[in-house]
């Protein structure tokens, strides 16, 4: 009886979440409607952003969002997986707990604090320490063209990497810890080293969870606002160089929403709708993958 009630309650709550999501989607669509009607799909291909003329296109923001997230993942995935492998397969038990605690702490820092740290520490460091050698060695690539200002795509990617790496570490460590000992022993008994065991038995078993962790990090990076807007430069342009300033969807919404009216406002909401749909999809994929990893890679028969 109590169980039934409890189950109904939970079902109602779960249903509530769905209803809220749907309501948000509806509200965003309604708010964005003037822009959707005016620009249609061309919104995604246009680089115009002219509040005076009332002409808007989201391409530079989409570009900035995608590229800063890609840079972030490019840095955070190898680092995060390396730490996760260390914590799960190599570190002695007494080390695992404090490091895990530190990682969680890192994930709990508010993003505006990351942003401040970005402005005062990361930006000067990128300008003075990281960029010169990059320019000296790889400066012939379009990727590192132009003057390193400190603010720009590279710094945004770096700060995003620092912000998402705890998610990758925490979730991948957990899914790797969940790999049964029998799988490790199978590899070890064949004469595998610890590293070979990780590569041949642990990572394949945990791979859907690891991919889920990466997607989770991607969703976070795509949607991150405060820290990015403080270091990315907020210039809606598309440049190959990572040194150049850029702009992201969430940053432009945060910066312009207060003063926007009419089509400008609708265009911002339109951009927000796009971001919402993308992060929602990435998030759902991530959760599905992590949940699947909890049950192992499928088809396991007793």
């Amino acid at each position, binding site marked *: 009886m109590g169980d039934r009630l409890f189950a109904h309650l939970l079902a109602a709550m779960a249903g509530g979440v769905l209803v809220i999501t749907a309501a948000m989607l509806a509200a965003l669509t309604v708010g964005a409607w003037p822009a959707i009607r005016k620009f249609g799909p061309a919104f995604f291909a246009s680089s115009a952003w002219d509040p005076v003329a009332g002409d808007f296109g989201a391409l530079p923001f989409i570009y900035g969002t995608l590229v800063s997230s890609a840079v972030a993942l490019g840095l955070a995935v190898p680092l995060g997986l390396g730490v996760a492998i260390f914590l799960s397969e190599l570190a*002695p038990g007494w080390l695992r707990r404090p490091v895990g605690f530190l990682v969680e702490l890192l994930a709990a820092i508010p993003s505006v604090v990351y942003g401040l740290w970005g402005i005062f520490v990361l930006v000067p460091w990128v300008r003075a320490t990281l960029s010169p050698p990059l320019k000296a060695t790889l400066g012939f690539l379009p990727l590192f063209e132009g003057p390193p200002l400190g603010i720009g795509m590279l710094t945004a990617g770096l700060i995003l990497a620092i912000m998402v790496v705890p998610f990758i570490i925490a979730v991948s460590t957990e899914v790797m810890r969940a790999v049964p000992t029998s799988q490790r022993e*199978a590899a*070890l*008994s*064949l004469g595998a080293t610890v590293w*070979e065991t990780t590569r*041949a038995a642990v990572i394949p078993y945990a791979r859907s969870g690891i991919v889920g962790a990466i997607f989770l990090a991607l969703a976070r990076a795509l949607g991150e606002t405060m820290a990015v807007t403080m270091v990315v430069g907020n210039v809606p342009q598309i440049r190959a160089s990572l040194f150049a300033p850029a702009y992201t969807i969430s940053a432009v919404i945060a910066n312009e929403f207060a003063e926007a009216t009419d089509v400008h406002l609708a265009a911002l909401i339109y951009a927000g709708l796009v971001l919402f749909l993308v992060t929602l999809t990435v998030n759902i994929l991530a959760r599905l993958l992590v949940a699947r990893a909890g049950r192992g890679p499928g088809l396991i*028969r007793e």
Partner: protein
Amino acid sequence: MPDTTQAGVAVTADAAVLIDHAAGIEAQDVHAWFDRLHVLRGVFMTIAPRRVTAIIGPSGCGKSTFLRCLNRMHELVPGARSSGRVLMDGDDIYAPGVDPVQVRRRVGMVFQKPNPFPTMSIYDNAAAGLRLAGERDRRVLDETVERSLRAAALWDEVKDRLGRPGTSLSGGQQQRLCIARALAVSPEVLLMDEPASALDPAATLRIEELARELARQLTIVIVTHNMQQAARVSDVTGFILDGELVEVGTTDQIFTRPRDRRTEDYITGRFG
């Protein structure tokens, strides 16, 4: 069971190609600990090559631990320690400078619950050890996979679906796949820790037959809870109680004329 003899002959022939050498083992004063827990208290035991040696004893007496001291798997458990000497063909596998990874390559192991790699196909499972050892030649892999699957009496059942996941097989087939996986790297000894305890009686019988066949080429040490199984499958039986080897002798002698009172009590079911 259709033409077991024919299957048996095939098994022996393929195992003979895979296994070029079977080692004898001599455990001398083997002790093992889990942190403070002293679970093996000085085991001496000689394991003859090309025989099935069974280890019996009540739950928790240290059978698995002893087995895992023979391929240096015990030391992988955090906090686990061991001492004593384990001679393989006269050389101590615990001597300084001996690489435990090399030891495990020479001493294969099959576990209580079948543990094929679930993301790998049947073929890839059988080839896993070779690939780990760096073998890339497709012809060598194909040949060894077929040979080890034949030697594990599994080939006829899986030859048409080598690309299917290892976990798509029945429990007994999965266990034979694990045996094939172990055989593929040409071990000198095969350790089996209650290899049939998760299987039904028919699958159990197949594993037992297989162990008998393989023992023509290979040294086999099998841990079992099941006294009938020990009697059916082994040439020599050792009885462990509370971390000590109480008695070892030919299986026939242990089951008909045990010398030690405790052995007699155990095999007649008075405790354990």
